[in-house]
C-alpha cells in the first residue's frame, strides 16, 4: 500500500524472482525451556522438540555479537554433522532465527563429569567408576580417531552424562575448536589438560595422540578431583608442561590405574598407545569392574544437590532480545526511489511557490500555537509530516523534524512532498476498485504514523491503536467511513477558514 517504503521494493523484487521458499521456523518447532549453560560462544538451553516430544539441547549463538567468522562456524557444524556414534553427543540440525544460530543437539541432562566432581560430597569418583567413564570416552575417541579427527579438548567438563548416567563425549566443534584459539579468553582455563606437543608445536604440530595425553590428565582429574598443577597459575603451567616430567597419579590407587595413566602421559606422542590399544588395558578390562554400565546413581544424587542449591544459569543474551522485532521496520531509513518522471514536475512546482507562500505563513502560525500537540513539535513522539504548504525549498532537509533524528535509534527521514504525491498516484491506481475506508485510509494512515514514530514505545502505542480500530470496525462496520468523512469535512472547514483569512 505504501508506495515508497523499502518493504515494497522488496516485494516487487520477490515477484521478479519467483516463488520464495518458506524456511522452517525453529521457534515453532521447539519449546525453549531453561538455560542450562553458557559459554563464550553462546547460551545452551534445554528445549522440547514439539514433533517428537524429545528433549534436546540448543546452543544459541548470537551472530551479530560474535567476532567469529560464520564460515568457520559452518565448517565446525559440518564437522559435527559427520559424527554419528553412541559415545558422542549427536548433532541434529542448525537453524537461523533472527540473527542467531540455533544448533540443536542431543541433550545430556546429567551434566558433565566436572559437575559430578563439583557437587559430589567427596569431590572425586571411585576408581572402578572412573574406569567405566574412561572406557566409554575411549570408545568415542576410537571412533573419532578412525575418522582422522581430533577432539583437542578432552577434560571432565567435556565428558557429558545423560539422565540415565550414560557417558557421551561432547562439546567439540563449535565450542572446542573456537575455544582452542588464542583470542578466546577461555584459553587460559584449559592448559592443564594440554599435551606438551600442542604447546611447543615442535615437529609440525600434533595429531590424535594429543587426545590420549588429555585423557590421562582427565583420569587423574576424575580420581583426585583436580588435574595436576591445578593450584598453579595457568600461564605458568602452560610453559612448564613441555619442560617438566610428565605428571603422575598420586594416592592409593591400583597398579593398573597408575600404569594406564603413565602410558597416556608419555611425552613422546609416538610412544603413546592408540585409543584402540588402550581399550585392552587391564585397568579397563577387569571383569569385576565391567558390572558398572552407567552413573545413574551419581547423576540422580547430583541433580538433587543442584536443585537444593537452586542451581540455574542466566543466559548472556535474552531470547526475546531480537533485532528484527515484529511490528517494527527491518530498516533504519527509507530512501527515495521514485521514478524520475516526478522530477520533471519540480520546475512547475517552484513557480507555484510564490502563490502558496502566504498560505504557508499562516499555517506556520497555526503550528506554533499548537506546538505541544503537533507532530511538527520536537517534543512530539511522532515526527512531523513535512507538509508541502509549510515547506520552502531551502529548508527541505533542515527542518527541525529532520534534524531531530540524531539521538534516536529509529528515526524518520521520509514523508516529504514527493511521497505525498506518490500517495496520490497510489490512490489513482485504486480508482475503479471499491474503496475500503478501513483498509485504504485508516490502516494506511496508521502504517504511515508507525513509520514516523520516533521511538519503539510510540510504535507499540500506534500498533495497539490500530488493533483497537480494527476491532471497532469489525463490530461496527462503517465506523471508518464515518470517521474519515468527519475528519475530511472538518479539515475542509479549517482550510476554508485559513484561505479566507489569507486573502
Amino acid at each position, binding site marked *: 500500500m505504501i508506495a515508497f517504503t*523499502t518493504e515494497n521494493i522488496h516485494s516487487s523484487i520477490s515477484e521478479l524472482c519467483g516463488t520464495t521458499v518458506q524456511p522452517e521456523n525453529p521457534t515453532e518447532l521447539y519449546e525453549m525451556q531453561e538455560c542450562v549453560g553458557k559459554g563464550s560462544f553462546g547460551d545452551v538451553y534445554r528445549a522440547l522438540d514439539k514433533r517428537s516430544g524429545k528433549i534436546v539441547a540448543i546452543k544459541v549463538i548470537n551472530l551479530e555479537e560474535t567476532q567469529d567468522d560464520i564460515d568457520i562456524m559452518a565448517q565446525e557444524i559440518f564437522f559435527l554433522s559427520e559424527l554419528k556414534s553412541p559415545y558422542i553427543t549427536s548433532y541434529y540440525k*542448525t537453524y537461523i532465527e533472527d540473527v542467531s544460530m540455533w544448533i540443536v543437539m542431543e541433550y545430556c541432562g546429567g551434566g558433565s563429569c566436572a559437575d559430578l566432581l563439583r557437587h559430589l560430597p567427596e569431590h572425586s569418583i571411585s576408581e572402578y567408576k572412573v574406569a567405566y567413564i574412561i572406557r566409554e570416552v575411549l570408545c568415542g575417541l576410537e571412533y573419532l580417531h578412525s*575418522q582422522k579427527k581430533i577432539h583437542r579438548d578432552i577434560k571432565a567438563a567435556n565428558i557429558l552424562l545423560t539422565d540415565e548416567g550414560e557417558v557421551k563425549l561432547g562439546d567439540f566443534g563449535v565450542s572446542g575448536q573456537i575455544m582452542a584459539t588464542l583470542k578466546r579468553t577461555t584459553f587460559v582455563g584449559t592448559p592443564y589438560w594440554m599435551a606438551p606437543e600442542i604447546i611447543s608445536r615442535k615437529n609440525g604440530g600434533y595429531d590424535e595422540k594429543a587426545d590420549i595425553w588429555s585423557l590421562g590428565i582427565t583420569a587423574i582429574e576424575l580420581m583426585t578431583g583436580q588435574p595436576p598443577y591445578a593450584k598453579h597459575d595457568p600461564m605458568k603451567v602452560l610453559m612448564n608442561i613441555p619442560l617438566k616430567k610428565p605428571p603422575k597419579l598420586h594416592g592409593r590407587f591400583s597398579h593398573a590405574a597408575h600404569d594406564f595413566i603413565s602410558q597416556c602421559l608419555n611425552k613422546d606422542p609416538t610412544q603413546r598407545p592408540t585409543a584402540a590399544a588402550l581399550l585392552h588395558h587391564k585397568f579397563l578390562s577387569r571383569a569385576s569392574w565391567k558390572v558398572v554400565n552407567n552413573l545413574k546413581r551419581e547423576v540422580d544424587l547430583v541433580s538433587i544437590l543442584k536443585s537444593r542449591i537452586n542451581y540455574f544459569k542466566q543466559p548472556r543474551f535474552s531470547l526475546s532480545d531480537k533485532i528484527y522485532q515484529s511490528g517494527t521496520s527491518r530498516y533504519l531509513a527509507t530512501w527515495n526511489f521514485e521514478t524520475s518522471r516526478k522530477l520533471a514536475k519540480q520546475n512547475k512546482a517552484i513557480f507555484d511557490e510564490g502563490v502558496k507562500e502566504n498560505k504557508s505563513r499562516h499555517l506556520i502560525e497555526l503550528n506554533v500555537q499548537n506546538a505541544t500537540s503537533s507532530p511538527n513539535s520536537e517534543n512530539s513522539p511522532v515526527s512531523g509530516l513535512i507538509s508541502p504548504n509549510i515547506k520552502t525549498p531551502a529548508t527541505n532537509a533542515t527542518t527541525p523534524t529532520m534534524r531531530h533524528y540524531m539521538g534516536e535509534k529509529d528515526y524518520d527521514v521520509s514523508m516529504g512532498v514527493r511521497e505525498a504525491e506518490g500517495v496520490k498516484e497510489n490512490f489513482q491506481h485504486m480508482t475503479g476498485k471499491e474503496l475500503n475506508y478501513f483498509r485504504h485510509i485508516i490502516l494506511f494512515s496508521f502504517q504511515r504514523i508507525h513509520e514516523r514514530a520516533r521511538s519503539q514505545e510510540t510504535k507499540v502505542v500506534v500498533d495497539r491503536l490500530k488493533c483497537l480500530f480494527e476491532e471497532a470496525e469489525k463490530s461496527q462496520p462503517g465506523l471508518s467511513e464515518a470517521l474519515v468523512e468527519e475528519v475530511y469535512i472538518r479539515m475542509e472547514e479549517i482550510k476554508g477558514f485559513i484561505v479566507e483569512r489569507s486573502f
Partner: protein
Amino acid sequence: MAFWWKKNPKTPSDYAKLLSEHLTKFETVSTTDSRRKAQDECGRYLSGIKQFILEDLDPVPPPEAIDELYATIYQSDLIYDLLVHLPELDFETRKDVAVVFAICLRRSKDNKFITVDYLVTRPKIIALMLRTTEVALKKPHCNDIFLNVGSMILESIKYEQLCRIILKDQQIWKFFEFARLGCFEISTESLQILTDTFTQHPKLVSTEFFNQPQNIQKFIERLNNLIAHGNYVTKRQSIKLLYNLIMIRPYNQLLNAYINSPENLKLIMILLSDRSRNLQLGSFNIFKVFIANPRKSKPVMDILVKNREKLLLYLENFNGDSKDSTFLDEKEYVMQEIESFPRLVSSNSDPFIESSPQKNISG
C-alpha cells in the same frame, strides 16, 4: 552368493571390481535385509580401497598393485556408479566415498593429475555429481547426502579443468536456489560451492563465463535474490561473495554491469539501513564502490542526488563508534563525494488535499 568366498579379494584392484559388482545389487534389492547386506558389502570394499590408497596399511602394498587399483577404478567407472548409488549407501560409507574421491583427485603420476584427466574425458561424472545434490534433497538424510556430494564438488573446483566443466553446466544456477532453502547446512554449502566456483580460478571465470553479458545479468539477478530474500546468514554471506567478486580485477565486466544498474544500488541502500550492523557494514563496502565510480550512470546518479540529504544524515551517525581507521577514511570519502553532488530543490507540487478523495475514487 553360495560361492562368495571365492570372490574374496586378493589384490587391491579386486576390491574395486567387487565393489563395482555389489553396487549393482541395489537395483534388485527388495527387502530391508538384503539392502542392509548390500550396504555392508559395499562399505567393506570401499573402506578396503580407502586403506589402500591412503597407504594406511602395514605392510604398504607394492606400487604396481596401487597403480592397478587406480586403473580398475577408471575402467569400471567406479566413481560414476558410486554417485548413482550414493543415497543408498550407509552414513559411514558415504563419507568414505568423499574421502576416496578426494584422494583420487590428488593422485599424480609423471606430473599429471591422472584422475583429473580421467574426469575431463568423462564429463558425465561431474554432471552427475552436480545433479546428485538435487537428488539428495528428495531423500531422507538429505543434509548428510548433500554435504557428501558438496564436499566432492568443492574438491573438484580446486582443479581448473574440472571447474570449467562445472561453469559450463547449467546446474550451477541451481545452487542459488539451494542457498535459499531454510536448511542451514544446505544453504551454507551451496554458497560455498558458488564462492569457490567463481573465485578460485579468476582467469577462467572472466574469459569463459563473465565474458557473456547474459551470464553477468543472470548472475547479478540471482545473487540479488539471495541478498534480498535469504535469511540473515545467507544475506551476510552473499553480500560478502558479491564484494569479493567485484573486487577481483579480471571481473571488470561484472563490476561495470553491477555498479551501473539503479536496481542494484537500491538494494544496497536498503541493506545499508538494515538493523543488523554486520549487514550495514557489508553493504557499505559495496555502496562505496558505487560512490567511487567516476562515471556513474544517469539512473544511479539520479538516485544518489535524490537521496543526497538523507544519505548524509544517515552516514553521519553510521557506525560512529568504529575505531577502524580504514573504515573511517572510507566513510569520510563517501560523505565528501555525496556532498559534492548537486543539491536538489524540492518540489512543491499540489498536495492531494485540494481535491476530495471521494471525487478521486468513486468514479
